[in-house]
């Protein structure tokens, strides 16, 4: 009986220890720094890209393509070290960069105040003013004020969601307000629901929506629903050497005209007046 009791109390202590380790692990995770630029030069640069964010990055016939993927091809020639690419869904990308799993997120991450607390952003790669898109046959929407009370689809955890209050303020001028907000893990589902009539409009960046309406004429592009907004590549906070290196690459691509060429190819227009740095208000 005593031995039984001993076993019980031992296992209880173990249980406490194991429980404590559950809390210790995230604390350890918070303290670790991202790889320095010197380490990156030795082991190669690990870039993370998305797989379902057309036209920036997507997969066609099993191969990554899009604006950012073509830039990565150029980056391979530009960089004096190896470039290793990891392709994964949006969900894990920024977390992976801030924990040092990846060195840079080469995707269209919109620069926001909140994200700037844990990440640093390169020069903007495009104009990402937010627009709404609606069904072409939906005659009830013809301008911003018609969006009053209508259901909107937007990506969960996105900058677009965070800046919906801006649209709310626009609507409030005509005594309107935002309707139901439906959040999706990614945009393809939001577009599908828009087509099915489960939401009345979807908010995304002008580039994504232009590509969408060009491909799917059942949708129609609306008007801007936000102020200035820019997407950029993200590195871990304080990784200034890597940031300078990437900004140097972007500046060179702009200079040679390659940047404008790729923007025209993938977005349908070039953005010649992009700022070199951007301080977000939101």
């Amino acid at each position, binding site marked *: 009986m005593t031995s039984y009791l001993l076993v019980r109390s031992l296992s209880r202590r*173990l249980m406490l220890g194991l429980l404590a380790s559950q809390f210790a*692990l995230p604390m350890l995770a918070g303290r*670790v720094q991202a790889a320095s630029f010197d380490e990156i030069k030795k082991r190669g640069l690990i870039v993370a890209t998305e797989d*379902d964010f057309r036209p920036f990055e*997507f997969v066609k016939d*099993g191969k990554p393509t899009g604006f950012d993927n073509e830039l990565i091809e150029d980056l391979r020639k530009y960089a004096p070290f190896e470039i290793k690419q990891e392709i*994964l*869904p949006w969900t*894990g990308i920024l977390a992976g960069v801030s924990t040092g799993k990846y060195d840079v997120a080469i995707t269209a991450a919109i620069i926001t105040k909140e994200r700037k607390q844990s990440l640093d952003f390169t020069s903007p790669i495009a104009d990402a003013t937010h627009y709404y898109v609606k069904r072409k046959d939906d005659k009830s929407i013809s301008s911003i004020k018609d969006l009053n009370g209508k259901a909107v689809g937007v990506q969960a955890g996105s900058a677009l969601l965070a800046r919906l209050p801006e649209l709310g303020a626009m609507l409030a001028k005509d005594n309107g307000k935002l309707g139901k907000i439906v959040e999706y893990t990614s945009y*393809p589902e939001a577009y599908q629901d828009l087509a099915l009539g489960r939401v009345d409009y979807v908010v995304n960046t002008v580039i994504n929506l232009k590509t969408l309406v060009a491909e799917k004429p059942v949708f129609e592009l609306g008007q801007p629903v936000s102020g200035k907004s820019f997407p950029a590549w993200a590195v871990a906070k304080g990784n200034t050497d890597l940031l300078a290196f990437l900004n140097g690459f972007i500046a060179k691509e702009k200079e040679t005209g390659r940047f404008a060429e790729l923007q025209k190819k993938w977005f349908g227009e070039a953005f010649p007046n992009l700022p070199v740095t951007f301080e977000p208000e939101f």
Partner: protein
Amino acid sequence: MSGGDIAAIFQGAVVTVSLSLVGILIGLPIGLGLALVRWANVPIAAGIVTLYVSMLRATPLVTLLLLLFFALPNVGVPIGPISAAIVALVMNTSAFNCEVWRSALMNFPKDQYEAAQSVGMRAAQRFRRIVLPQIVRVSLPGLVNEMSLLIKVTPVLAVVGVVDITRAAVRIGSETYEPLPPFLVAVALYAPIVFALVSLQRWIERRQVAAEAAA
């Protein structure tokens, strides 16, 4: 949807099947081992196993996977997406398998075990000849159930960049803006995979019945 797209979904199917198989093949014996530790009431170890099983049964697979993938490198264990996926699958399925095996062990008639002891069989012999064949038969439906759940839970592995059937379908949908055709192909692929597993179960069961009839 192009031919390349269909090929991409089939490539996803290869990933789904191989990761599930690896998960099952490693998770099955580990589950049995855990169940035996609890059944035999091994001091200390039995308590740890109880804790391990209840903790893992309470942890969603996707959470466990993200924890392994993002936290392990920070404590000095580099882990890639595929290995993180396998470790998470094995940890998850072994906990559930343990309980299926244990239910069979708990119902195992003690007198048979004692009879085997009395004819001088050693522990390993008793286990291999008397216990194992009988608990396998009792556990099989529950284990196959858990295996088919494992196959269908593989889409969560996509969060760390593993491209399974569903992720391949999502990618195609976002490229063509037509999500329905790739999803239909995806659904049509899961059915035969699970059906193959169930057929294997039936085949094993039939063989056992035939073996008993012969005895």
